[in-house]
């Protein structure tokens, strides 16, 4: 059985710069997302968008312990994680708007298909669940290269039901690979509550035990708890201690995609999460209560982030669209390995 980790973490144990860095990461993700939805309504974005609002503690808390050369496979609300890992915002907006400055050089991407190797972002597939087996391969590569890199594989509760979940977890346990599996359990896989999609004793993370992988269940909206438990898992992986599995309980505020009215959810539950369990709101209150930061600290960060976001959007909008011939470029790489 997975360990249900509950800690009353005193923010005063951490220095103020670090605490505000976590705050900045979370508000940056939310501001990115809110502005993306605005751009979507303005007709500037190609394709579908799967908002990650409400789930910002995941990327902020985990990526704080990752190096640039560590790998991530982000999930379906994965802008949060790719932003936290350091993909430039103008490149992500550029992908959503199909501009040349995007990581795909104009092909277009949005959540899936953003890759940024210099920050270890290996990409993501549109059919979810390949992350488990791709992570297994990336983890195995670290073992062969004898480096101390770590791979974090993010996925939602819906994806945790994919067949590849078993394949990837089995390799990770069998070969003792440096992988941290992070399940963002936001309760719904499209319209289906996770308890209707999984045969569970208690938690999804309980499954890790069968693979000999330590499993943890945490409040995924408590960014300090996410940070601490992920840090321990990442350090264990980095030092040869093998894989870990973390299930962060969280909630998505919006529908599966923008335009989904999400009538399958009880609105009272949504409001409960937004009012009482919001990662950013609670973090601010907690830091203020502990005397670790003040309102003006947050206001300064908010203002900086807003400028960063608007500058990134302006840069992306200033970037040209590709020529139509772009689709014929790059199918095969020339040369030899």
């Amino acid at each position: 059985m997975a360990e249900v980790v509950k800690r009353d973490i005193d923010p005063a144990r951490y220095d103020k710069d670090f605490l505000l860095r976590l705050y900045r990461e979370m508000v940056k993700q939310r501001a990115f997302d809110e502005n993306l939805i605005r751009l979507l309504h303005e007709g500037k974005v190609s394709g579908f968008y799967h908002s990650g609002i409400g789930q910002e503690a995941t990327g902020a808390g985990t990526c704080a312990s990752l190096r640039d050369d560590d790998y991530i496979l982000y999930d379906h609300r994965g802008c949060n994680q790719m932003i936290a890992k350091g993909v430039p915002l103008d490149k992500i907006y550029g992908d959503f708007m199909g501009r040349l400055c995007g990581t795909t050089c104009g092909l277009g991407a949005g959540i899936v298909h953003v890759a940024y190797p210099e920050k270890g972002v290996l990409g993501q597939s549109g059919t979810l669940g390949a992350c488990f087996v791709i992570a297994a391969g990336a983890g195995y590569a670290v073992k062969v290269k004898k480096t101390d890199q770590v791979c974090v594989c993010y996925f939602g509760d819906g994806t945790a039901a994919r067949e590849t979940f078993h394949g990837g977890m089995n390799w990770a346990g069998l070969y003792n690979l440096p992988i941290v599996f992070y399940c963002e359990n936001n309760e719904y896989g499209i319209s289906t509550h996770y308890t209707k999609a999984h045969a569970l004793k208690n938690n999804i993370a309980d499954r890790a035990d069968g693979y000999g992988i330590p499993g943890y269940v945490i409040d995924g909206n408590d960014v300090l708890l996410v940070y601490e438990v992920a840090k321990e898992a990442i350090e264990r992986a980095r030092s040869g201690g093998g894989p870990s599995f973390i299930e962060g309980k969280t909630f998505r505020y919006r529908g599966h995609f923008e335009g989904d009215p999400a009538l399958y959810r009880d609105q009272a539950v949504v409001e409960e999460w937004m009012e009482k369990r919001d990662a950013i709101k609670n973090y601010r209150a907690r830091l203020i209560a502990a005397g670790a930061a003040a309102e003006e600290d947050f206001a300064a960060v908010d203002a900086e982030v807003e400028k960063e976001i608007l500058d990134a959007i302006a840069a992306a909008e200033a970037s040209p669209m590709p020529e139509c011939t772009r689709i014929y470029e790059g199918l095969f790489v020339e040369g030899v390995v």
Partner: protein
Amino acid sequence: MKTISYMQAINEALLEEMERDGSSVYFGEDVATMSGAFGATAGLLDRFGPDRVFDTPIAEATIAGAALGMALAGLTPITEFSFADFVGIAFDEIYNKLGKWNWMHGCCFKIPVTIRLPVGVMAGAGPEHSQSPQALFMHSQGLKVVVPSNAYDAKGLLKTAIRDPNPVLYFEHKVLYGMPGEVPEEEYTIPFGQAEVKREGSDVTIIATSLQVHTALAAAGMLAGEGIEAEVIDPRTLIPLDKETILASVRKTGRVVITHEEQKTGGTGAELAAILAEEAFFDLAAPIKRVGSADTPIPQSIFLEQEFKPNEEKLMSAVREVMQY
């Protein structure tokens, strides 16, 4: 030159390329301690050790997906499925991921993955262990498709596959494993996209792949006794495809028969026929004929599986038919 089997040619290519590329790994079902379902990986574990050569769980989707992950993280992964039919288990990982990953992520990666895929009817292996699924991947995008028909091609093309920065599906015919052939003592590779004229002839072009190259050569020998000189072309790689060599031959002979062990409908010959119809229609003196396997699943009976697949008789009959024009 030395004479070795098709299987030994594969084995030599693996040993040489893994020696050459220290980032290469070989993994798959029963490949390390048992040397693979057919023995092609003998000696790899001893030479390169258990980190670079290892047995995996029997789970092809994981094998193919992990190959992609290894490539993204800087390795040169080489793997195999025990039977090519198992591509069905890993279809998403091969069709949607391996081939498309680099393009759909803006072309910032190399994906030097090679997957060996044993194809073909042999010894009553039955409907799910005998198929030739090449056409599925000729239709996909971003995968190279290799179909070696003899020891020389098997070695030279496998070495090229392993060095290629793109994913390569290497379809090898099980009946060919024991077939001897001449290969040079010295190192060589064969570029992709170069068809070979396996037999010259002036009356009709037979385009044949994999084991059917040998059926075509045997048929051509017998047809010569009837005064029909058949030219036998082996494309060797279907992606990329050497259209020029094929078109030059067809323009010379004006008649063409395409043969493969894949089922006829939707087989790779359908694409070849369409290319010829588009690009050589006015050079043709007769309709294009295809000789493929029956459009049925493959029977397990060793008697009926012979009926299922093309043979010299069926091929000669098709050639005689196009010679009527």
